[in-house]
């Protein structure tokens, strides 16, 4: 094992990109144990890593919970635009090797919802490269896809899925590229930021959220971020992550559930909660019962501690405001 912590030779951006590897491994672990089905999860984990993918039960359960939250938001959005008989868009920020589009591809097509993913060019390259290594999956998901190497853009032939390389800290440039790819600000749009914004400098987050509020009349935003930096657990969390080179600039600017609510206060409707509240209120009892049978879970106190340190924020305006009734 190297005596140098891996991050010493990596840039801060590399380290942030590296968090996607952790997420991919956690996702695969949860899938392997049976928390959820995802036939695409293994594509993004090397076979050697896949053998040792299994995470502790607490991590499996929490990974299930965060994926559940965003899946649920997507399902509610799809139901809404279907009911309103209008096309819609999903804008997934910092998605990394997330498989959500793949898992919902058919429902999205049926609902006439286009899906845009934005992440660092390196991450986009990595995602495409993983997909290309699995020909059958590539053929299923991206038949006739075009790839623009200069712009680091991949798009399916039917335009239903677009993968853009970009930097969230340079949002105007990303907006330009989105427009060029057919992103329509007048359409109801679900913006998803699953453990992304907390890594971004607060002014850039403000810019991004203000743009959504100002430019997307019918929009919903869902975000999942670390919170509570200053209790014993939070301090240890920041210390441990810092040892790996991971910093959380957002956690100091938006340190609590209430601060997240305030940050989104321009939107007509806002709900923010920690993941303990999400688990209690929005994961159905049958699911909790099913999950309890998957593996021994002897980490109740730590689960509650962890849950207090992650915030799910949901905000909406325009025709999507009623989505908040479900939260």
């Amino acid at each position, binding site marked *: 094992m190297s005596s140098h912590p891996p991050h010493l030779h990596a840039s801060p951006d590399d380290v942030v990109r590296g968090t996607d590897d952790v997420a991919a491994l*956690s996702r695969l672990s949860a899938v392997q144990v049976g928390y959820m089905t995802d036939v695409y999860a293994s594509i993004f984990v090397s076979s050697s890593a896949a053998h*040792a993918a299994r995470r502790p039960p607490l991590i499996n359960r929490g990974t299930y919970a965060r994926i559940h939250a965003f899946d649920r938001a997507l399902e509610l959005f799809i139901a809404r635009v279907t009911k309103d008989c209008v096309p819609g868009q999903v804008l997934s920020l910092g998605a990394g090797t997330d498989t959500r589009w793949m898992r919902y591809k058919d429902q999205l097509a049926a609902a006439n919802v286009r899906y845009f993913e934005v992440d660092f060019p390196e991450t986009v390259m990595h995602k495409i490269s993983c997909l290309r290594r699995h020909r059958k999956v590539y053929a299923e998901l991206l038949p006739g896809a075009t790839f623009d190497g200069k712009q680091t853009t991949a798009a399916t032939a039917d335009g239903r899925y677009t993968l853009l390389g970009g930097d969230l800290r340079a949002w105007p440039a990303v907006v330009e590229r989105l427009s060029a790819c057919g992103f329509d600000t007048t359409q109801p749009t679900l913006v998803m930021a699953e453990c992304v914004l907390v890594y971004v400098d607060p002014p850039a987050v403000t810019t991004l959220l203000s743009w959504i509020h100002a430019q997307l009349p019918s929009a919903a935003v869902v975000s999942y971020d670390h919170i509570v930096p200053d209790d014993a657990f939070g301090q240890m969390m920041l210390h441990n992550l810092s040892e790996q080179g991971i910093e959380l600039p957002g956690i100091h600017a938006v340190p609590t559930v209430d601060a997240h609510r305030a940050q989104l206060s321009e939107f007509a409707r806002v709900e923010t909660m920690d993941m303990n509240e999400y688990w209690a209120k929005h994961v159905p009892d049958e699911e909790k019962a099913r999950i309890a049978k998957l593996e021994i879970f002897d980490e109740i106190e730590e689960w509650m501690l962890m849950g207090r340190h992650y915030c799910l924020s949901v905000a909406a305006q325009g025709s999507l405001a009623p989505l908040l009734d479900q939260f």
Partner: protein
Amino acid sequence: MLDLDACISRLLQRQLLAEVVVRDVCAKLKEALLKESNIQHISTPVTVVGDVHGQFYDVLEIFKIGGHCPDTNYLFLGDYVDRGYYSVETISLLACLKLRYPNRIWLLRGNHESRAVTQTYGFYTECMRKYNSANVWRYFTDMFDFLTLSVVIDNVIFCVHGGLSPSLHTLDQIRVIDRFKEIPHDGPMADLVWSDPDNAISDFGISPRGAGYTFGVNVVEKFLYLNDCRHILRAHQLCMEGYQVLFDDLVTTVWSAPNYCYRCGNMASILEISPAIDRFFNVFGAAPDTDRETPSTAGGGAGDPASTPDYFL
């Protein structure tokens, strides 16, 4: 011929015992533990230790602040393995100390002293990694079957890893349990190692852990009355301050793994009880990183060679 002093000396320097030595220690320890009742009666002075979960350096810290065995009498309330990076060294040391000083150190069985739990929470993986075979894990888990379930201090303090059971009202009922087996999924033996007190209820309730029960003040008062005891001392639940006193001083939880899992940032404590039941919570925090293993220097977490404390990223 087993040289326990040499074994203990090695372990205190965090050197592993050879597999055949582990085999012999466990075999002899099983013989010794066979003689212990499901309820062992011991006397003060004694220092009570809660969950340590493989946090070897914190066990060394406990001996430093509490006094070394056999100078100080110790009662450990279980959960020696899993989660921490040195479960093997921890249980090896405690096993040797118990064999060497059988009347100076007492070891209860916790819910982690179980084949099923240790396969989920790290001890099995650590044994495989450190010995390249499952034998050591088998020797230890077979030995766990012999660990006693409870202790009564000075006839008045009932000590157990988890808590009470709706099937067990008297100490005599505990005495007749056949404990020499893997912890069952349910029933009185499971309850003793899995249950938790809950001051929101008065009787028994469903446990969120999926094993054991939660129990309230009425249950506690009845148990203490029926058995002429004054207090219940247990572990099993993380306490941010290292200990917690409940039900108007009828139940105490002792927790002895500081900064649990390198994540929780909690304090730990050991409870020093002297004759006349004088009680002192010796609270301590994690040793500075320079004095202990850290995730990056440990050479591996609970089984994972590249592990660092897990978060959602």
